[in-house]
């Protein structure tokens, strides 16, 4: 699965990794739509592998079409009340923001609802 979705990497360009990012629970309105297929830089500016922490900043800077970033990020971290799942698993099991993103990963952000 991971291999088939990998994008060709050319040495001269910043390598990218292809991932799928999904938003639920109203978060999709901040990003225009719920399902995104993205090619993100494989490393941050200092050359460290792209982590979930990096992805969150990257999403805010490049994909968020609503300026209310505090609905997604607070104090540099995912705001409380948002679940993060990495390949269908709770991100706590994967190291949370430190998880290094792999090509083909599916990252899901779900905002907890309380109405009824």
């Amino acid at each position: 699965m991971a291999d088939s979705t990998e994008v060709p990497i050319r040495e001269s360009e910043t390598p990218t990794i292809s991932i799928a990012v999904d938003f639920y629970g109203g978060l999709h309105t901040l990003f225009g739509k719920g399902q995104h297929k993205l090619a993100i830089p494989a490393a941050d500016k200092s050359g460290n592998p792209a982590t979930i922490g990096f992805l969150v900043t990257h999403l805010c800077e490049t994909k968020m079409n609503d300026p209310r970033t505090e609905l997604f990020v607070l104090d540099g971290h995912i705001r409380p009340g948002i679940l993060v799942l990495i390949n269908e698993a709770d991100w706590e099991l994967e190291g949370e923001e430190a998880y290094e993103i792999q090509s083909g990963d599916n990252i899901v952000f779900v905002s907890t609802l309380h109405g009824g």
Partner: protein
Amino acid sequence: MTQRPGPNSVSAHVDNGEDVPDSGTSGASVSRRLTEEEFDRYSRQMIVPGVGKDGQLRLINSRVLIIGAGGLGCPAAQYIAGAGVGTIGIVDGDVVEVSNLHRQVGHAASRIGMKKVDSLITHLRGLNTLPTYVPYTFHINPQNAADIISRYDLVMDCTDNPATRYLISDICVLLCKPLVSAASVQKSGQLIVLNCPPTPQGRLDRQYAPCYRCCFKKPPPPSSMLSCGEAGIMGPVVGMMGVAQAGEAIKILISALHIPSQDHSIPLERNLAQPTLLVYTYELENAVGPYSFRALKMAGRKKNCFACGENSTLTLEGIQSGTPNYEQFCSLPSPNFTLPPDERITASAYHGARNRGEIPNHLLLDTREKEHFSFGSIDGAVNVPFGKLLTKAAAIKREGGAASDILPPVEESDVAEDTPIFVVCRRGLDSQEAVEKLKELGVNNGGKRRIVDIVGGMKAWKDEVDPAFPWV
């Protein structure tokens, strides 16, 4: 199943008023014949593979507590009552309002003003007179929660706020009750079965089901939280979640999974080893598909969980005496705006100034969503939805451009650089932030132009100026 019940059939239903029938064997397979009415009434579900007479008897001998008689509780209760659950408790302190009726299908126009619990029970008795219905016409709180929940086998969280959700889950952990939890707002819904099969607090010798806190460790800050009253809610979305809750509860009861795992020998593979969060997204933008249901796999009980984990200090006594403080836990500080008094005007003062001709030339920006604006607005108001205003402000900051571009197009002759701007929103929070944003962009022309917030928004306008205003 081929045998019709004879004249000696005994009904298990004892209607003893406010009291919940005490059944120490609740959920166990009680062997007795079904009454003729039970047989006729439940035949269509009993012949479904996996239900049968034993499954039906488990439902009849079960006690289910539905907390919340609103958009989730109404549809949930209909199916719980229809299926023949023997004792159904319903908790809610609210009364029926006309704005409930588009989704709260257990109420009726003729019962507006009645306690929701009484209204819903009236409706349920119309469907099925066999169950014992127990009304609790007040809200659940840390003082009464354990006493109420202890009388039931399974709890359905149909409430509408995080403080109550954490409270219910904590009590369910301590009393070993399975919890079927759902939530819905605007165009999204969620459903999860928690603490099922129920396992005593602190047990971690193998995989156990999570509680609400295992899945949702911290509540969202109040500023990012939407209620149905503010954000709206589509009836079928919340209805679907409520019906799905009933479906899950019925499955649990028929399978006897509500009995604490230490007391029975149900094989491991039936223990919902894979907790699942169902998320439903309803798109009004794409009227025809794609349908979006997604089942997200969730982790099991967490070792470090505050409620059910290894070293949890949570107790029933503690909860009753105020520890933890649920209200405080769920109302962490949010950015609360208050502009200085010279940048604010009350709705009645604004109205007075207009009438006296003191502000002949001014711009009135209404930052509510366009759906709200469509119901009515102050004469001359121009709609600039708050989200759009922020987006535009961000774009101007990023890409440059005239700050005045953020203002709606108006006749040049009407607007001078000192033409004051008044900003109004729904309740008076967004408008203050909008005033700040406009100043930040320099729309106030270095102080030559006043930018003023109308205190309390259109709610205040309705209260102080125009009682007939259609405020939502």
